[in-house]
């Protein structure tokens, strides 16, 4: 195909690629640079991408005054617990659907997937009442239980897709050797699915880490609030501390971006398997 391309087309492609790069990366780089600039420089009327003078005061404000580390801790607890639960429950379901004779398994898969299309605002009111009655407001438990259900459809779909690619001869051989059904999952299917488990786990983690609506509704103080809620509340009554917000944003986003870039190939594959499957 390459030889049929005219020089004009080549230029257009590179220009388009550059545009995509600037469009996707630009705003974040600008935000990142903002986090190292003095408030004076931010309001000076002549913005610059290079922070001069370079300052860490916004990071100081974010951690010392706004106690950002406490939100980070809450988010870590909730997201990690959600990830492991999602992988556990999701792999059991995906295994059953892929390996056992389940009647109407595509129907079941469709039902599981359709759950992810429910508008979450329709769930939050009733769940809030349940959480109030059970005394679960301002607990990690309420968030983890909710995020488990939010993450499950995607996790189950992606793992199901992966399990389906594993040859069935392997489980037949294992069954001949007397391996039981849970043994088949635990000793054979799961170890073979490690890459897929890592990707799926990352997806569940990101979903929980970024979730805002339920965290906003179910938590009311810094002991249990997660990062998105913390950042949303950063705004001062009289002015918006853009530098502090940028610093907090960098703290919660940079590790995520590094992870995503590291696993990008798997993520794209995983998501297209779960999102668009015919």
């Amino acid at each position, binding site marked *: 195909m390459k030889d049929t391309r005219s020089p004009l087309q080549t230029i257009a492609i590179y220009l388009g690629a550059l545009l995509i790069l600037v469009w996707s990366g630009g*705003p974040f780089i600008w935000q990142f640079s903002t986090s190292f600039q003095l408030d004076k420089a931010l309001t000076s009327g002549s913005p610059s991408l290079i922070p001069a003078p370079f300052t860490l005061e916004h990071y100081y404000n974010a951690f010392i005054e706004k106690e950002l580390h406490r939100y980070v801790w809450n988010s870590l607890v909730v997201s990690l617990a959600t990830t492991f639960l999602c992988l556990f429950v999701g792999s059991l379901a995906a295994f*059953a659907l892929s390996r056992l004779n389940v009647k109407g398994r595509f129907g079941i898969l469709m039902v599981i997937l359709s759950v992810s299309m429910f508008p979450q605002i329709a*769930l939050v009111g*009733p769940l809030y009442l349940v959480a109030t009655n059970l005394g679960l407001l301002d607990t990690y438990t309420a968030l983890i239980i909710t995020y488990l259900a939010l993450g499950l459809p995607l996790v189950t779909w992606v793992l199901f897709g992966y399990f389906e690619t594993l040859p069935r001869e392997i489980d037949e051989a294992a069954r001949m050797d007397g391996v039981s*059904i849970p043994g088949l999952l635990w000793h054979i299917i799961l170890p073979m699915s490690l890459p897929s488990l890592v990707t799926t786990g990352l997806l569940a983690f990101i979903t929980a880490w970024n979730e805002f609506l339920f965290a906003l509704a179910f938590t009311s103080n810094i002991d249990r609030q997660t990062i998105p809620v913390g950042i949303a509340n950063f705004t001062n009554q009289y002015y918006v501390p853009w530098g502090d917000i940028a610093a907090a944003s960098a703290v919660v*986003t940079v590790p995520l971006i590094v992870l995503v870039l590291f696993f990008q190939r798997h993520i794209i594959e995983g*998501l297209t398997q779960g999102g668009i499957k015919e």
Partner: protein
Amino acid sequence: MIAAATVSGIGRPRLGKALPGAIWAFLLLTPAFVSLASVSFYPIVNGLYLSLTNTSLITQENEFSGFANYVQLWGDAQFWNAWWHTMWFTAASTILETVIGLGMALILCEAFKGRGLVRAAMLVPWAMPTVVTSKMFGWLFDGQNGIINYILLHAGLIDQNINWYGSPDTAMTTIIIADVWKTTPFMALLLLTGLQTVPNSLIEAARMDGAKGWITFWHIRLPLLMPTLLIAGLFRALDAFRVFDLVYVLTGGGPADSTETLSTLSYKVLFSTLQFGYGSAVSTAMFVTEGIIAIVFCLYLVRQIRRAQ
């Protein structure tokens, strides 16, 4: 269980046989179903019931009130205002994201140096928490010191700073731009995998017959990509329809309710006025609209696929 599994050797009765597959399937699927039932199906049904009551956490009432909430909803200007905004946001962002995403996918489909880098960079907006995206666009479009105003001013496109999300005329546009930024690249990646399944031989054959790039795109790639395009569009539309974080953080529904959407309105009715009955009516109406969008899309998709065959 696992220990038992490993000791049960050949010749002995197998555990798999001892417990029939159907029971195992039931056991393994139960945790997922309990989770989905309690956090998704139960709230939907309960919300439907709540919407038929006058439940309020302030007056502590919770009596059955029939369709009173829906009658009130029908005559509620705020609800229709939010309904139209939501439809407009959904249509505008889905169309923009699909069209621009397709353009990006077509570029990424070509071989060029640094393609891996571009593909990776496209995941950045997707991975970012939406709250962070909202704050970031708040800063980019800041009325006083925002870089967007600075660029436009110095390019001579505007002659004074625009108060982007502080003015009813531009606030929704700003939110749509933020959403397009966040989601288009990901859309492009989905479409790219769709494009890559179009067999090269077909395109080569068309080129041999003298077809120009544009024609091969229009008559070969696009029809073959149609199912992917529609499914991706459907997912995006359903997602856009329930937009919450972006609006809540960027404008809070203001100024003058000009960006109020169904999600932000529901949230306010639920958690500011604590009218859980009426709030549930708003969210149920939203659920029904979303269901209709999904069904219409699916019917159209089925027809398209049938026609293609």
